[in-house]
Structure formats: C-alpha cells, structure tokens
C-alpha cells in the first residue's frame, strides 16, 4: 500500500478527527439556529429531538391574508441540502399559488432550489406568497381567475374561506388566528 500518512506529514488539517454527525444534520442545525424570522413566523417541533420534521406557522400582519394562521409541514431528508426540503400546506386554503391538496408553487422549492439556499430563504418565500399572491402562474386556477377578474370579490372569497366551511362545493379549513 502507498504510505499516505508519510506523503504529506506537514498537512496538519489531516490530523483532525472529524465528528460523526452527518453533513445534513450539521447543515440543518446551522440553518435552524441561524433562522432570522419576523414575529409573523413561528416554527414548531412536535418532537424537539427531531430536527428534520417540523411545522411553520405564518400569521400575516398585512395584506389580504391578514388574520389567518397558515401551517406548513417541513420534511427534510438525509440528502439535504442537495435535495430541497419538502413543504406542504397542511390546511385546505383558498390561494392562487397553493392547491387544495396543499401543494405550493414556489420556485425555490423545486426548479430553482440550490444547496446555497437555506430554510430561512424558503420561509421568507412562503410568507411572500401571502403578501403578494401571484395569479399569473396559479396552482388554484379558480382563485387566480377570480383575483384577476375582481380583486374585491377575490378578497371576499379569501375572507369567507378563511373562516372555514363550504365555498363553491369545497370545504375549507378555519384558519383564523386565535
């Protein structure tokens, strides 16, 4: 065998024993402990020992969705940050960029994800969807059409659906902040 050790005796960086914590784990620790969230966003860990599965609650303090509390589930796999976190809205809500199954249309969650992005960027991106819903590239086409057609009617629909109950034969969750 080649004698690697004697190859570069002066390479001191090599003489450091590395920790057993996985790269994904360290990266999630780094992302979470460096989160810089406004008061409108709050994370919740059902099991504080499990950093890979948690929820985010967004309570917009302005815009059309003001007064609501919107929950998203985050699920991070061991291939993070090569793979993006999987994010879904856990409530049925009326939003042009969130469909009734909870899929979210946010570029950095799919086609534009890169490992230099972090959990903070994703959360800020999600909040932006509630401040500036985008009807041009919708996931919920009906909501988007309504928003383009009449902003007032759309706002009424948002308000109505946020209280929960049936609207146009879809049952929405009550998402009003308590």
């Amino acid at each position, binding site marked *: 065998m080649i004698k690697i050790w004697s190859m570069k005796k002066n390479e001191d960086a090599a003489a450091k024993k590395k920790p057993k914590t996985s790269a994904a784990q360290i990266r999630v620790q780094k992302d979470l402990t460096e989160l810089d969230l406004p008061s409108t966003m709050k994370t919740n860990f059902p099991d504080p020992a499990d950093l890979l599965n948690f929820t985010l609650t967004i309570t917009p303090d302005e815009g059309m969705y003001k007064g609501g509390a919107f929950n998203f589930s985050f699920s991070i796999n061991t291939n993070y940050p090569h793979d993006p976190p999987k994010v879904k809205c856990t409530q049925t809500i009326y939003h042009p960029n969130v469909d009734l199954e909870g899929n979210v249309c946010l570029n950095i969650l799919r086609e534009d994800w890169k490992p230099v992005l972090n959990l903070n960027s994703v959360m800020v991106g999600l909040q932006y969807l509630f401040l500036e819903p985008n*009807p*041009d*590239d919708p996931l919920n086409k009906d909501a*988007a059409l309504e928003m*383009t057609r009449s902003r007032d009617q759309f706002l009424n629909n948002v308000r109505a659906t946020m209280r929960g109950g049936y609207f146009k034969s879809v049952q929405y969750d009550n998402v009003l902040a308590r």
Partner: protein
Amino acid sequence: MSSGSQAQPVEDATTALESVPDQKTRRYDRQLRLWASSGQAALESSHILVLNSSSTSTSILKNLVLPGIGAFTILDRTTTSPSDAGNNFFLEGLDSVGKPRAEEAVRLLLELNDGVKGNSIVEKDIQEVLASEGEKGTEWIKSFSLIIAHNLEKIALDRLADVLWADFESPPLFIVRSAGFLAEVSIQFHEHAIIESHIESSPSLRIDKPFPKLLQHSLSLDFDGMDVTDHGHIPYVYILVRVLEDWKKSHDGKPPKTTAEKKEFKEIISKMRKKADEENFEEAEAQAYRCWTETVVPSDVKSIFTPLSTPSPSHTKPFRILLRALEVYTTTVPPYTLPLSATLPDMKASTSQYVDLQTLYKERAVEERDAFRAVLDKVLQEQGENPSLIDDETVTNFVKHSHILRLLRGKKWGWLEESPDTLATLVQTSPKQLAIHLALSALASLQTKHALATAQSKSTKEQETEFQPKLEDLITEAKSLLPTGVEFEDDTDFENAIGEAARSPTADLPNTAALLGGIVAQEVIKMTTKQYVPIDGICTIDLVETWTGLL
C-alpha cells in the same frame, strides 16, 4: 430530456396507447435512450472481425456482444497458455489451457447475449490469410463490417492496412496497441458521414430572418391591450421578432450593432413589462443576442461542402448528394440559411401560445423541407441518379440535423510516420501523447525484428526466447521514427513513455485491457450506428497519470 417531437399527428401519437414494452426493448432500454431503434438495428446487422482473442480483444467484444451486435468472428490460432488463462475473463482458468483460445473465448462471450452469433477460426491467422489466400482472402476480410486488430504484428498490420486502404469500399480498421500502462487507439477509414451526431447545439430560431407567418403573428399582437396574465405568457420568440422589427424601422433596417445599441435594445424589452417579474420578458432579454447574431450556415457544416467529383465510398454517396443539395439550397433559396428546424425549445408561455408557435414552426419546417426535397431531386437528376435513392424519411432526418452534420475524412494507418512536418509540430505541441505513440511503435518494430530472429534460430532448434527489448534499443528505435533534427525539448515525457514500454513490453494488463475494451467498443458503436462522433486521429492513453490525448 427533449421533447423528441417528430412531426406526427397528435391523434396517432396518443390515441393508440402502447402497452408495457416487450422483453427485448426492456433489456436494451438504457441504450435505446442513446441511439434509438435505428442505431440498434445498425448494430444488429453488423458482423465484426477480431484478429485475436487477447484480454483486450475479448474485453472489446464483451462490450459489443452485450449491446447486441449481429455477429462476430475471431481469427486466432493461439492455444491458450497459462498466462492467457490468468488475465482473460473469457477463459476458464486452467481448464482452458491447451485448448484453442478463440474457441474458448467465443463460447464464453456468447453466454452474454443469445441474440448474438459468434464463431472462431483457429486453423489460421491473418498473416496466412493475407499471404496465401490472395484475392479470395482479401475479399473475405472486406466482407466484414469492421475489423479490430489488437497488438497485431507490424508487417501483417501494415499489409492489412495497405490492402484495405487500396479500396474505398473497405470496412474500417481499428488499430489498438498496448503495453503495460500505455495504449493507443486509431481507426483507418476513408470517409464517415454522420447525420445524428448528437452534438449539443440548438438550431437557429431565425428570429433575425422571420418567415412570413411568424412575422405577421408577431406584428399582430396587441401588447398594450392584453391583460397581465396573457402579457406574461407571450413566448419570447414573438417579443423578439416584434421588437427587432420596430428597431429596424428606425435604424435603416439594421439590427443593433454596437454595445450601446444592444443595451438600448434590451432596455426596450425591459420597459415593455407590465410587472416586475415577467419571466417571458426576462427570457426575451436573455435571448436578445439572437437578434444580432445573424443566422448563417454554421462554419462546421459549410466546411464539409465538397464537390461531388472527389472520390468517395458508396456508403457516403447519399450523404454527399444530400450535402450538395444543401449547398445549393443555402445559396439559392432565400433567406440562404439551413432549412428551418421544427424543434422549439421550451419557453415561458401558456399552453395554447406555445402549441400555436410550435405549429407555426412545424408547418414552415415542412414547407422548407419540401423545398429542399425539390432541390435534392434536381441534384439527383443532374447526377443521373434515381430520386428513390434517398427516401423522404432520410430527407426529414437530414434536414432536422442539418446544423450538426459531420463528414470525417480518415487517414491511412501510418500517416503520422509519413508526415515529418506534423511530427515536428507534435513534438512541440503534444510531447506526452507523441511519446506514447513512439514508444508503442518502437516496441512493434523491435518485436518484429525479434520474431524474425527467433524464426531463423528456430531452424537451428533453439528455444523460443521471450521478447525483452533493452531500454537503449527502444530509445534508438523510437528516435529513428522522428525526422532528422526533430527532438523533444524536454526528454522527460519521452523517457517516461519509453521507460514504461521497456518495463512491460508484452503486458496485456487486465485494467488496461478493460479500459481499451470500453474505449474501442464506444468507437465501434459510433462508427456502426453512424451516431455520435468517432475519434479523428490517434487516441493515446497513459494509465499512470490517467489521461487520454489525441494526435
């Protein structure tokens, strides 16, 4: 991933649903994604001749039997030796020792794929075929679709190369040489035409020279009157055609030229946005260069336009005629460009906008293909050829790939040794690569001398001696291959190669053999399918530092 959209009616494409693919398609799935059924059919109709069953030769064959060539023949009179049994995966250890090597190899290779036929000829070798079978032998050799020679003895190799080169219709000859960690691969052929080169280059959208319907549609769009959603889904092609047309009106009919003008042009696009984040307008800005990059015939394609009078093999004749027609087309039919491609890249657009644009391109592409066909028919007529020589499917395929066509002209084996100027240049520009070639050439020469000497001494019943050239002899032999006065500036590269050759002159190392097996098989596949681009020159390989280089 590509849309791979052939011009076929939607109904045909989607009403008759395919079921789960058959066994053969499933077996070949991972390769059909590279060369499609046309490439597979070409492989399956090939019959390859291999001139021995060394570890390298069987490694090559393994990688050809697996993807399903039609047939192969091994010509080798060697009896399996203990050393053969030690380094060849297609021999069964001591059980194979003493048996004809080629028979053993064929039997074990055929286990890999029952769709392939293989046979061995063990009572003679290529030397005998060339020496004693005359015209009949030569014709037999030429009946194969290609020939592979690994470490073939120099006199026989030169003779074989001569015989094949003398006839334009000869199959390609693959010359593979190796010793220890060093190797090289080259192909002798007259001409090789490639339509589907798979070169990564997209055809022009001809935004700078829009066809009438494209121009008309772009001009008819009422950008201001559109709502935000529609405005955000106009394909960038329309935006660019429109902005360029407006620009030309105020600039003597000329596109932006200077950096300042180009910047101004992009600002015009930017200002057209109704919202800050309209992706289609961002795309239009990013693609704006298409407006001032004139659509012309790509130089790589122009460079292969050749007079039909130059001699060529019959298998490239249809390609040459197509190429001639393309030259005529691009010089006589406005706008003097390649026929339009129906392939449209994906872009931000609504479904209907995109599908409509795609239809515009497809319809126009069909019109231009038909115009090309008319030119082609005229060329065929001039050449006294029947129009049925080239079918419509070939024409469509040719037009579709007209921006990435390739025509390779090969060289005769030994071309480098016969070109002192090239050697003088290479000694400067590619010393490492040249050193490997010289080392392998020197080994081949000395080995032949050794064999002749052994043959003479054999008559006096002496034992056969192993070929173990001295370092000094190799150096002298290698240097004698260079023209007088031409020397390596720094001898290190030369000494490195010669030193390795002297260390392991007859070693067919399993790893080197396996690597050559892969490289040669890739080249065989490329030559046989006429897809992708084979090497054009001598590929030299150093497995000490692990690199390849071309001479």
